[in-house]
């Protein structure tokens, strides 16, 4: 590995923000499970690497009045084990628990997973359906964006050069709610998702008040929310015809790339119906779709 660049490891957030505001070409190093691989392969040639792993204030999960706050340096295994991410939020810790392998989950951070913004990123779909927000801090203050606004496409987000992703906010749901995360991969062990999906439903037993959020991964460059389908499923009894209509709408809106190494567009489109039926069944109990 060719190492011409500078390396800094600030101990506090303030020091880090100053450093990245003064150096436009800084690359942030957190868990390193993406950056170190990319530097070695020559994909990224940084001038300065800022190692944020020592900023301890960024690596815990806590509950405030309105949100569950997850520090951007929280590792996948910390998320898996967290007692705050149970019940309705379990889909996020489940997604974290199947990301990469055990050794990787001990290093990989949620912030890195978001910023890297892989189309099949494990945590993105659960975060989208949980209406999560990201907190971006710089020397001039902070901005809060919804995860849907924040992620633009593979490796692309709305983050500015002088900003650091510090926290992920998950709104606390007071109503009855439940969610599910599903993925398909080529092998049972360690693999990236070929296609994945998250569904989150609030007020599930009251058809009039029911709210449904759905997000699919790898079918468009960023997490895809079929808003028309959500509305269609929200206040109607779920029947086979409704599912078929939903699949039709989704397939007319998505355009999976043909060059994907993991699954063909046909397979991804085929999986949409399976995910919809299985996901809704898991949350709502038995539904009659035959």
């Amino acid at each position, binding site marked *: 590995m060719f190492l011409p*660049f500078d390396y800094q490891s600030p101990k506090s957030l303030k020091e880090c923000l100053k450093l990245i505001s003064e150096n436009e070409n800084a690359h942030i190093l957190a868990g390193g499970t993406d950056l*170190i691989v990319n530097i070695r392969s020559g994909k990224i040639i940084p001038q300065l690497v800022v190692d944020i792993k020592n900023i301890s204030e960024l690596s815990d999960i806590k509950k405030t009045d309105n949100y569950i706050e997850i520090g951007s340096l929280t590792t996948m295994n910390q998320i898996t084990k967290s007692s705050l991410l149970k019940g309705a939020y379990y889909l996020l810790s489940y997604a974290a628990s199947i990301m990469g392998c*055990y050794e990787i989950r001990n290093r990989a951070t949620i912030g890195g997973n978001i910023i890297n913004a892989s189309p099949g990123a494990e945590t993105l779909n659960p975060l989208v359906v949980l209406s999560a927000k990201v907190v971006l801090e710089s020397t001039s203050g902070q901005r809060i964006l919804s995860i849907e606004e924040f992620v633009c496409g593979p490796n692309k987000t709305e983050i500015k050069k002088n900003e650091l992703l510090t926290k992920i906010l998950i709104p606390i749901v007071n109503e009855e709610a439940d969610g599910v995360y599903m993925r398909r991969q080529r092998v049972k062990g360690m693999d990236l998702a070929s296609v994945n999906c998250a569904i989150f439903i609030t007020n599930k037993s009251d058809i009039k008040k029911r709210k449904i959020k759905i997000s699919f991964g790898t079918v468009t460059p960023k997490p895809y929310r079929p808003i028309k389908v959500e509305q269609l499923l929200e206040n109607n009894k779920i029947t086979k015809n409704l599912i078929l209509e939903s699949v039709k709408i989704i397939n007319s809106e998505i355009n999976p790339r043909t060059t994907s190494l993991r699954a063909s567009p046909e397979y991804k489109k085929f999986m949409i119906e399976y995910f919809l039926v299985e996901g809704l069944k898991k949350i709502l109990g038995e539904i009659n779709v035959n």
Partner: protein
Amino acid sequence: MKKKITFYLNNEKVVVKCHPLKTLLKVLREDLNHTEVKNGCEQGECGACTVIIEDEDKKSFATNSCLVAIGQVEGKKIVTIKGLNKEKELHPIQKSFIDEGAVQCGFCTPGLILVTKSLLDNNPNPTDEEIKYAISGNLCRCTGYIKIFAAIKKAIKLVKKIRNSKKI
């Protein structure tokens, strides 16, 4: 740009002078001659380079040393397979791997033994599913995993026996 980095390798203090972004794997193999840490894929797929890292709050976890920048281990404790046995006496996990014939070419063995140790430290009674889940990041191209799995099952019993005898 070189930096002095101090850490503890198998309970011995070591000081290296190198670029802080050189990977822990390269430092161990090239600068410190610890070639028991194997270099497989260098991108976190194969698990051959697994080491155990213990941080300041005594939390220890197995991870891929090819993905850790040496600057990130300042002050931390690293355990490689060499740090597992006490002088000539093998660790019970090492013994079980030998007894069950779970070693063929041996390239994946250091990683598998360390990930097993990390698993048993955190969970002394793992289920079959939990064992499979824990070793899913370690590839073995010889054994087909059956013997490795048997060795881990044996190691669980052995470790438990030793722990119980120490209690008395």
